[in-house]
């Protein structure tokens, strides 16, 4: 017998199992390709473990239901793809301003609109950051393996609960649907963070009181009898139009995240130290890029890969450090140039080489290598 802790499973299933590991007790969703496997697992898992699964009438209701569930104290999650992610944008902002922890998985697929429902893409990278109206914080994670679909989902819950904010996981059709071997960790092996609650059985007069740069310690619904709103509010949680308070709170919900970047930042730097050709890539494109790095190194080219695992907030200092030494920043991505805009922001001198593929096919190492061949290296 194989070690029972190993499984050969799809990325989407690993994501769902990661959520279960993290203690997700509520899943509300609406089916959409290529994310359905997550909901399907949850529909089987939750009732067997005292948790709840509900298929809501649409994606707006789905995210609404998980925000509601989270306010009662349940770790809650939904999963969708582009069209559903667009529909969730309004309430993502709600979770930001009301500081409700939720995890939203967007398994990206091709095209704008309905596009190519069963083809891979990476074209929601910037939507994850800017999709909802108004200024708001975003934590976005982009796994690139089945294993990371598990471990990063656990981390997503940790960040959501700690920072009291929605955390977005961007999968893509490739990572979501491919099977790899992963080791399912024992309970206790990975850190699982639970939201901190006020003592005193949750009763508190100023549930939203918080130091600047810090998340709130909002009690769950129950004895607390708090008020939660999507209007700008003060420490008591009630609406205010006081400019000082509004400004502070609008800033705090973002700054709380920038304040503890060490908990959030995560990236992989593959042979970046001396890299002259630095790839910036995420998700499945990063796997292709990593193979390209091997090939190039084999040919004596000093190539490296910088792969943000936490995409937002972007690990800009670390990237800028490697970028400063590189001659070229090559940005292979399955979209028309989204990471590229980030590279442009955080590189002052280096030549940026975009590689964009939007044909519904995976972006492979060959495409990358042939683009790099044209460079003057």
């Amino acid at each position, binding site marked *: *017998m*194989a*070690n029972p802790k*190993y*499984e*050969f499973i799809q990325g989407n299933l690993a994501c769902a199992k990661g959520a279960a590991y993290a203690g997700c007790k509520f899943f509300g969703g609406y089916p959409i*390709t*290529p994310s359905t496997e997550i909901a399907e697992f949850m529909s089987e898992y939750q009732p067997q473990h005292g948790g709840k699964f509900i298929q809501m009438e649409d994606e707006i209701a789905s995210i609404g239901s998980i925000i509601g569930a989270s306010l009662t104290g349940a770790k809650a999650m939904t999963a969708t793809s582009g069209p559903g992610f667009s529909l969730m944008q309004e309430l993502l902002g709600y979770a930001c301003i009301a500081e409700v922890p939720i995890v939203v998985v967007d398994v990206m697929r091709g095209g704008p609109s309905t596009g190519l*429902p*069963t*083809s891979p893409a990476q074209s929601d990278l910037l939507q994850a950051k800017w999709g909802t109206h108004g200024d708001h914080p975003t934590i976005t994670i982009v796994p690139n393996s089945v294993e990371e679909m598990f471990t990063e989902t656990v981390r997503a819950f940790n960040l959501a609960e700690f920072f009291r904010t929605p955390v977005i996981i961007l999968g893509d*059709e*490739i990572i979501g*649907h*491919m*099977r*790899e*071997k992963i080791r399912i960790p024992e309970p206790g092996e990975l850190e699982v963070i639970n939201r901190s609650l006020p003592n005193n059985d949750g009763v508190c007069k100023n549930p939203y009181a918080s130091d600047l740069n810090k998340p709130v310690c909002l009690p769950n619904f129950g004895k607390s009898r708090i008020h939660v709103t999507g209007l700008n509010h003060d420490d008591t949680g009630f609406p205010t139009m006081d400019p000082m308070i509004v400004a502070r709170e609008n800033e705090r919900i973002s700054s709380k995240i920038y304040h503890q970047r060490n908990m959030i930042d995560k990236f992989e730097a593959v042979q970046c130290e001396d890299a002259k050709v630095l790839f910036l890539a995420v998700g*499945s494109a990063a*796997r*292709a890029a*990593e*193979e390209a790095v*091997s090939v190039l190194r084999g040919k004596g080219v000093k190539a490296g890969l910088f792969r943000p695992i936490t995409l937002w907030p972007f690990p800009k200092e670390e990237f800028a450090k490697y970028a400063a030494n590189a001659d070229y920043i090559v940005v292979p991505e399955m979209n028309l140039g989204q990471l590229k805009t980030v590279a442009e922001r955080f590189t002052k001198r280096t030549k940026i080489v975009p590689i964009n593929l939007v044909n519904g096919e*995976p972006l*492979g*190492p*060959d495409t990358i290598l042939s683009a790099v061949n044209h460079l003057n290296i």
Partner: protein
Amino acid sequence: MRKEIRFSGSGGQGVILASVILGTAAALYENKHAVQSQSYGPEARGGASKADVIISDEPVKYPKARNIDFMLCLTQKAADKYLPDLKEGGLVLIDSDYVDVPETDKYKVVKLPISSTTYDKQGKLIALNIVSLSAFVEVTKLVSEDSLEKAVLQAAPKGTEDFNMDAVKIGRELAKTLK
């Protein structure tokens, strides 16, 4: 050593399950690195459908197959569509009951009457995918007999274990006729 394998056939023939079993055998029972992926969308419903497995001693970076080393084709449509992806020097196993491909120097063609043999032995074609997989493994030696059997057992629904092990044997015997 990185090997790329493609199973192809029509929608309901179970090539996906076969690929998962092969991947499982390699990844869980032989401690290799394996990545499986498959086609979704309209094609998966009718027409030609495919599932790929990459097996390697090294971690697999890019997870998609590009140069197929070994291929299995259960229908003519699948053969027509996917054979061009087989690399020079590769090997394709076809179900000679339904598929015909011209002989060529580019790759090796192995022909076995999988369907008729399965039907003859089991009276139905339900386990065609397992028979094919087993024959394929016998031909390619990508995983050991033991690992294959373990993986098949793991995948078999309760009560169908014997039937599936029977299918494994049928496939293996059939392939041995080649020698």
